[in-house]
């Protein structure tokens, strides 16, 4: 919470500064008037302030430390909502500001974003590989996926942004699902530590199937939704001949697969260390339904996104084009034909 306050203060200050520089806070008008500000250094400094403010919220590379330290503390349903939404809001804010307000100095801001995106992907997934607690592994994975989202923004092509948008939808669904499953796994086996639990495949093949869908979608297995999202981002980076980026993305995918199969082997396949075995049907019927229904629903959405990706990719491409070509937005906000308006400062 305290760090969030700091980032809020940073954001507030930078918003104040941007007002001082341009005399407006309307995002559409800022798009126009920031391009005419004759002080590029101040604009770049503001851009960096915004990156750090939203970066704390989104948990990108040097600012992610609060996330794995806090996500395993609250009850698992709370964590599931946080994991699904909190960091994505930060990325959403980043995408909005850096396509609409700050497209002035692309070489500068987007190189920073690209570097942090790559480092975020790698550190997140390496952190996950080193953990042996169900929720901590998932928390570190959030960081690495934030890297993918920011990567789409940093590449700054319609395809890459579409990849980001699609990835965000896929990731919200899959990640929330994984945290919910980890809660049910804890209810069944009594712990989150990988070494102390096991045997869930025996207890409930159904739950295991749902985990399989969500986890391997996250790792980017072909028919599932994560595959399409990663494919879009990979294709975008290869189109720009950014081979290093593509290589990092692939390595991250492989390491994601490693820690997901670690969970799969330890929690679902291995026998429970204390021969006591757990049975899903020991849980009262009502609670069982409450636990399984949302998980099943989210898994179905993941499957749907994976099997029929085309309409969703089309929507993401539309969104990306709109982001990169904001004249429609400007007209809608400022009124027709007002794109020549130069601010009031």
């Amino acid at each position, binding site marked *: 919470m305290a760090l969030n306050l700091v980032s809020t203060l940073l954001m507030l200050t930078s918003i104040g500064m941007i007002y001082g520089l341009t005399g407006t806070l309307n995002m559409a008008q800022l798009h126009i008037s920031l391009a005419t500000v004759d002080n590029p250094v101040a604009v770049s400094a503001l851009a960096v302030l915004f990156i750090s403010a939203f970066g704390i919220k989104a948990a990108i590379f040097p600012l992610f430390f609060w996330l794995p*330290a806090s996500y395993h503390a609250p009850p698992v349903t709370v964590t599931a909502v946080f994991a699904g939404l909190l960091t994505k809001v930060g990325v959403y804010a980043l995408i909005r500001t850096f396509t609409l307000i700050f497209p002035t100095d692309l070489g500068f801001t987007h190189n920073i974003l690209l570097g942090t995106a790559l480092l975020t992907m790698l550190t997140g997934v390496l952190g996950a590989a080193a953990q042996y607690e169900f929720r901590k592994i998932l928390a570190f994975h959030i960081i690495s996926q934030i890297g993918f989202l920011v990567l789409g923004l940093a590449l700054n092509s319609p395809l890459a942004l579409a990849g980001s948008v699609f990835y965000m939808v896929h990731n919200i669904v899959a990640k929330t699902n994984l945290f919910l499953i980890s809660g049910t796994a804890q209810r069944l086996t009594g712990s989150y530590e990988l070494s102390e639990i096991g045997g869930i495949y025996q207890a409930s093949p159904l739950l295991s199937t749902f985990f399989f869908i969500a986890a391997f979608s996250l790792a980017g297995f072909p028919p599932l939704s994560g595959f399409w999202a990663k494919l879009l981002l990979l294709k975008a980076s290869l189109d720009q001949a950014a081979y290093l980026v593509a290589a990092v993305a692939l390595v991250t995918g492989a390491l994601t697969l490693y820690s997901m199969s670690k969970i799969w082997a330890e929690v679902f396949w291995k026998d429970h260390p204390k021969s006591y075995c757990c049975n899903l049907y020991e849980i009262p019927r009502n609670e069982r339904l409450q636990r399984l229904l949302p998980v099943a629903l989210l898994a179905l959405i993941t499957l749907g996104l994976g099997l029929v990706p085309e309409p969703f990719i089309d929507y993401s491409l539309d969104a990306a084009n709109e982001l990169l070509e904001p004249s429609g937005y400007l007209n809608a906000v400022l009124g027709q034909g007002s794109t020549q308006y130069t601010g009031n400062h």
Partner: protein
Amino acid sequence: MEGPIALVVGILIATGVYLMLARDLLHYLFGLVLISNAANLAIFITGRLTRASPALVPEGMDVPPLPVANPLPQALILTAIVIGFGLLAFALALIAQAYKVLGTLDVDSMRIAEPVRPKRKKLP
């Protein structure tokens, strides 16, 4: 006038960061308060400091007589002060509760979420 006030903002932020790096939660809170006030001050001077009247529209006129002070940063800060006050009260309550439960305000000794582990057992 902008120069000296900008300096004050810098000093406030530096003091705030110094306090926030302390291990004592109460120091941390004071640092946060200082930084939030510094942010408010910074926003205030982005509206430019001028000798001007408040932006009040007198009766019978459509616009206030010029020159008027820029009302928007002031409105922003007014909101920020209220929210900041609420947050301060909430954080103080949290800290008081933490002290009641844990008996300490030293951040390093609050290890419920991440206990110091003995050597980990090897996974089979």
